[in-house]
C-alpha cells in the first residue's frame, strides 16, 4: 500500500505496468510538498462517451462469424452549410 505524509512514498504499478491512480495522487502530493516547480502530470481521463444510445459490440459467433448485425443507424441530419446559413448553392 501507499504511504502518505512520511516523506517517503511507495508507488504501485498495475498489471499493465502503469502507475495506479493512488500512486498518481501520492506522486502529485510529494512533488508539491517538495516545494519545487515540479508539477505532476494529470492522469488521463477517458473521453466522455459519444451521445446517443450505447453501441453494442458486434456479436462474434463460432469461428468468428457474426450471427447478427447491429441496427442500421438513422441517416445523418442534413447539415448542408448553405442551407444552415441561408445561402443558395450557385454551383461554384
Amino acid at each position: 500500500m501507499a504511504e502518505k505524509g512520511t516523506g517517503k512514498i511507495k508507488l504501485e504499478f498495475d498489471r499493465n505496468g502503469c502507475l495506479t491512480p493512488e500512486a498518481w495522487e501520492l506522486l502529485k502530493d510529494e512533488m508539491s510538498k517538495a516545494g519545487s516547480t515540479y508539477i505532476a502530470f494529470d492522469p488521463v481521463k477517458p473521453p466522455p462517451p459519444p451521445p446517443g444510445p450505447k453501441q453494442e459490440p458486434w456479436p462474434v459467433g463460432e469461428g468468428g462469424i457474426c450471427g447478427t448485425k447491429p441496427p442500421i443507424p438513422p441517416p445523418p441530419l442534413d447539415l448542408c452549410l448553405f442551407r444552415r446559413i441561408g445561402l443558395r448553392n450557385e454551383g461554384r
Partner: protein
Amino acid sequence: MIPSDCLDPRRLHLVLMPTEACHFRCTYCFEDFRLGRMPPGVVRALKVWLERRAPELELLQLSWFGGEPLLAMDLLEEVQAHAIELARRHPPLLVQANLTTNGERLEPETFRRLLALRVTDYQITLDGPADVHDRTRVLAGGGGTFARIWANLVAMHEVEAEFSVVLRVHVHRENRQRLPELLERCSEAWGGDRRFRLSLKAIFDPGRPGFDAESLLAPEEETEAIDALLVQAAELELVDPPRAGAPGGERGPVCYAAKANSFVVRSNGALNKCSVALSAADNQVGRLNEDGTVTIDAARMQHWMRGLFSGDAEERRCPMAARPVASQTAR
C-alpha cells in the same frame, strides 16, 4: 517541472531486444550475448501487452536494440507490423520506431522493408577509416566490417525518403588521430545531407577481462579530442550547430531509465530499466508474463525513478551512475 513524458501513461517507450546475439565482437562491447533470440512465447506476450495498452496510448515508441536486432528481422517485422496495426485501430495512437544496429546487414532491401514499417531513425557506429574501424569492430568469426557498413550507409544516402541516421563515432586513444580522415570521407559521401548527423562518444571500460584499458582517454583528453572533432564536423556540415540551452532544457536531460513509462524488454521477457547495465541485479524491475500482463517490482522501479522526485539532476540524467558504487556492475 518534470516533463510530463516521464510519467505520462499515454506514452510507452520500449527498448526491445528481439535477440541478444550478435555477429560482431567489438573489443569494448559491454554485452555478454548469453541470451539469444526471443522465444515465441515472449513475442506473443509482448504483442498481447501492446494490445492491452493500445487503447489508452497516444504514443508508442519502440527502440529496436540487441544484440544485433537485424539478426531477428522476422521478429522485428512481426512486432512492428502488429504495432502499426494497433495504431490503425486505435487513433490517435502514433507509433515511432528507431533501430540501433551495427549496420552490416542493413542492405538496401532490408532498409526498404524497415522504412515501410515506419522504422525511421537509425543509429550506426563507425570507429574510423576502414583499417582503424576493422581493428575494433570485428566479426565474431574474425574479419573486418567497414566495407559493408559503408556501402550500406552510402546506399541509404541515395534513398529519397524521410529518415535519420545518427552516425556514432567512438573515440579512443588508438583512433583519435585518424578520425579527421573519417570525417572528411563522410563529408564527401553525404556532407550537407541533414538526415545524417554525427555523434562522437568516448568508449568506456566494459569491465570484463581482456579489455585494454590503456585505450581509454583521460577525461581531459576526451574533452579535448571531441571538441576538436566537433569543430571539424561543424565545418563539414556533419553536425547541427549547437542550440541554446542544455539538453533537456533547464531541468537537464532525463534518461529513459528514470521514466515511469519506459522499459527494456530483454529477449527472455525480463523488464529492465537500463540498457547498458544489463547484468546488474536491481536493473530487472519486472517480468512480462505469458498472458501479456506484467509484474513490476515497485520498490526497484521507484529506485530508478527517484530523480523525478528527489530534485537531483544527476539521478535523472543517469540513475545508474548516481547509484551507490557498491551496487554497480560495470558492463
